[in-house]
């Protein structure tokens, strides 16, 4: 005989009900946690972001790199941190990351966050990058994967 049939129906129903309640409880906890985090982030942003949606370009004789981000904060007189959805865009490539330190004086951009470079038939995933010499040299850091199509 099937062992399941030996169980008391009432006990089985109670356990099933309790199990469903438990799952719903865990899900609701996670939902409220996320909601709290986003609220916290918004309040922090309101307090700390020096520049909202900064936009500027790094110019060289031949090309321009446009830089955009959701937030910007001054670190020193010359250094700015660009945060969230940071994009470097030139006519040849785009780089996406979430955190970049940019030096206005030296025009060096540096990131230690996960970055994605996309160009014509090329993509590079790295653990950060340095853009130097007006974008002529890009140094992708750490474990890096380059895919050529």
């Amino acid at each position, binding site marked *: 005989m099937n062992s399941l049939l030996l169980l008391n129906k009432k006990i089985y129903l109670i356990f099933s009900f309790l199990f469903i309640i438990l799952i719903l409880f865990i899900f609701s906890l996670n939902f409220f946690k996320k909601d709290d985090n986003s609220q916290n982030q918004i309040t922090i942003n309101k307090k700390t972001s020096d520049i909202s949606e900064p936009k500027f370009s790094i110019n060289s004789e031949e090309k321009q790199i446009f830089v955009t981000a959701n937030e910007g904060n001054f670190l020193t007189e010359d250094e700015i941190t660009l945060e969230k959805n940071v994009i470097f865009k030139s006519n040849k490539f785009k780089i996406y990351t979430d955190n970049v330190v940019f030096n206005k004086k030296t025009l060096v951009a540096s990131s230690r966050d996960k970055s994605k470079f996309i160009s014509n038939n090329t993509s590079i995933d790295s653990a950060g990058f340095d853009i130097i010499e007006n974008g*002529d040299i890009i140094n*992708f*850091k*750490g*474990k*890096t994967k380059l895919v050529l*199509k």
Partner: protein
Amino acid sequence: MIKLIIFFLIIIVNSKYALSRNIGETEITTDDGIEVFQEEKYYLLKKNVEIVSDEFELNGDLVKIYFEKDLYDIKELFASTDVNFVSSTYNIKGKGETLTFNIKNEQINVTGIESELFFETTEMFSDGSITVNNIIGSFFIKGPNSKLITDEILITGYEINGIVVNKNGTRTISKLEVQDEDILNIVTEDTKMFSQKAFYDEEKSIIELFDNVKIIRGSEIITGDYGVLDTNKNAYKVSSKNSNKVKAIISNTK
């Protein structure tokens, strides 16, 4: 339960391949990043570099790739430090301290101690450099301990240059030039040849030997200044600038 575990193990093992590159793509991984020089049009791949494509696989510790317009448009590749290279498409594999691969000219150059390049059934070794051009069908081996081995012949010398031609789908050596300031060595199935310079011409079916010539076949040892071996008739002749110089030793070893 066991079936379930096996099922998950299969999924975990195959996930590596499922996430790997697509056909036609070249995947390059490095442990210490990539430096892209847009003006100079090259990029440097650093530490434990692995390149996998449809045509070839390469491992090295430092790789420099030159490109034409964009990064994918590879012109030439230079790899150094314990380089390993395999191409099933071109039927070539090799290893050495450095490797240069010119994509357009289909030319490979391997350098360094214990360099190796296997080109179909031809094996090349050197402590100097080995160059193979797939389009022209030429090869150059230069340096100490240079060696060429095929199914029919073994050659050692400081400099071994040759041309390979495709006959009925198989590549055979059509021309060969070997030089060694000390002494070079050519070994066929039944003959050993020594000299300082040698030429092989497949059309004429001859091997010419110059300076300090010595031919050993069985119990015969002939020395002189010039030797010629007819590979069709399997006969040879040795001569000398000085008519008294040719020396033949025929010993009965039975």
